[in-house]
């Protein structure tokens, strides 16, 4: 029994991290219709920012604001220079563009920082094990990440549901032509959404760095599972990404614990089932 409780906690913690990554992916797709394969690379960039800044300052704390600012700036620059010209192109063109970005980011990372594996130290204040249940401990940092993810999810919900900018973003996601009718500047909204989506990915990378280490191509695995989250939750829906991420996190964790022979398969079976039952995902607005 205590094992099950520990596993559920594991699942929730993993799911919340997946939410941070997939919320940006789903926002960008929902508002701009762009399939951003480079989203995993943005996650990797965040992790390397954490590695570099933590190395320079001796503390992970500084790397979190740096990762957010770097993500905002990088996202805005990418949107302005590249993605803006691809909103009305075919998905194949977008896939080629974002795949090229993966190669560029990986090569840049290789040239600047090499191909080694690095670990990032947990902040000293949180470098303790907290007994959770039945002789199984959780690092305080892992619990702090869990809380941070919940806070970010709450802030996103408030921003999207309760602010003017949020309603403009929702309008842009549902009926792009509405934005112009309402007299809003669609280009600004696009840049904002892209910047925020990128910053969410880089922040997730920085938060995850002490938990997952930092290594080449680390974003690829997260990209694939994030696509599963987005598809299950409903493309374009942040609430869908939240519940989808929790569902995928729990299913993946519990399958690993209790159905080890099917652990690699469980989330994909779930995705196939959801697609058969509700082809637009669990939370897509019809």
């Amino acid at each position, binding site marked *: 029994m205590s094992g099950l409780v520990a596993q559920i906690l594991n699942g929730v913690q993993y799911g919340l991290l997946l939410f941070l990554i997939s919320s940006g992916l789903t926002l960008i797709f929902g508002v701009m219709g762009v399939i951003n394969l480079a989203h995993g690379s943005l996650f990797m960039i965040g992790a390397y920012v954490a590695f570099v800044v933590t190395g320079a300052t001796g503390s992970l704390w500084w790397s979190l604001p740096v990762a957010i600012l770097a993500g905002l700036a990088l996202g805005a620059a990418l949107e302005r220079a590249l993605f803006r010209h691809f909103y009305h192109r075919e998905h194949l063109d977008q896939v080629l563009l974002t795949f090229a970005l993966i190669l560029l980011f990986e090569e840049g990372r290789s040239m600047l920082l090499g191909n080694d594996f690095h*670990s990032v130290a947990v902040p000293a204040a949180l470098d303790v094990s907290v007994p959770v249940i039945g002789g199984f*401990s959780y690092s305080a940092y892992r619990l702090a990440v869990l809380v941070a993810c919940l806070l970010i999810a709450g802030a996103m919900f408030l921003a999207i549901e309760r602010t003017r900018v949020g309603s403009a973003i929702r309008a842009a996601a549902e009926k792009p032509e509405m934005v112009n009718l309402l007299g809003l500047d669609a280009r600004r909204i696009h840049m904002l959404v892209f910047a925020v989506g990128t910053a969410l990915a880089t922040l997730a990378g920085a938060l995850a760095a002490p938990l997952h*280490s930092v290594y080449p191509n680390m974003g690829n695995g997260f990209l694939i599972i994030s696509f599963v989250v987005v598809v299950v939750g409903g493309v374009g829906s942040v609430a869908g990404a939240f519940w989808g991420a929790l569902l995928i996190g729990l299913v993946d964790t519990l399958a690993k*614990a209790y159905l080890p022979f099917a652990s*690699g398969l469980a989330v994909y079976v779930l995705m196939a089932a959801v697609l058969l039952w509700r082809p637009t995902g669990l939370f897509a607005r019809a």
Partner: protein
Amino acid sequence: MTTITTRGASRRGLLAAGGAVLASGLTRPAIAQGAPLKVGLMLPFSGTFAALGENIAGAFEMLLAEKGGRLGGRAVQVVRLDDESDPSKAVQNVNRLIGRDRVDALVGTVHSGVVMALVQASRERGTPLIIPNAGNASATRDLCAPTIFRTSFTNWQPAYGMGLALARQGVKRAAWITWDYAAGNEAGEGFRDGLRAGGAELVRELKLPFPETNFQPLLAQIPGLNVEAVGSFFAGGGAVQFVREYASAGLRDRVPLVGSGFLTEGTLQAQGAAAEGVRTALHYGDGLDNARDRAFRAAFQERTRRTADVYAVQGYDAGQLLSVGLEAVKGDVSAERELVAAMERARIDSPRGAFTLSPSHNPVQNIYLREAKGGQNVVVGVAAEALADPGTGCRMRAG
């Protein structure tokens, strides 16, 4: 990027090269003693395993330099080829070395998927092959061949040593945790066999898909297993994270973590305090108290400005083994029977300690027990003495 050079082989070029190889194989021209002997080093010089490839190649070339650049009386020319640890390019890369560069012998590689192309080529064309790392069992088990040798290990060997050492310390019940892929599963068999040989039991295998690093669901099961130790096979970044998470889950002080040596090989600095005291088993380690090893490490450092490790040792010994074979045939690789016979009988004076080869051409070697202390894998004993891989399924013509 190195890939550009590997694209050179046109279809016509391949056909011509293939024809040339066929012709030379049929006529077996007398070896011109003046012509250099070509050795193809197919290793990863870029990507995740680049450091391993550099150390293997550096040590092989150091051995050559010690022999004055000649083996069996013939000048040796080394052809380096970066295999990028990419299995999808492996066959093309091997064809390039054999077909275009016309190498007389092959040394490679690190990645166990890529090595299969080398094994295949050696089986089909009879080009002598020495494997300086890849530990997949089949190369010296069901796919063994007279011309295929290994100077490293099978995945089974270190894990067997670890299991045996645990059982001898009085552990009765242990669990195994690994990625669900060939290397992890072969090591798991070794761990189980080693435990059994000492009268202990492997009660549970925990696996996650390669190369995932979400270890939490597996770690949370360990307290409920009622085991006295947990054995593991991870390498590289996965090993770094696994050892750290094992410690932060509060398990390290309650259920000791042990493993096949790769768990802490080249990763100790990144693992930091979490690895302190972790015991592993491998055919090499720090602080082996022998003059041969001290001299080797000093010379390697002097020549390459890199620190010698188990990979350098394996590369150096690949050179030593090839040297023994070529001395016996005076540099004439076409005398395959004599070449193979001499290499089979070889006793290699390795920095790891002298070793011989098993009937399936894999080292019969000591597996050392090491303990991670202050960033080094310090040898604290011998886990299994003169351990041979069982070589199950290897059928070679006798002699």
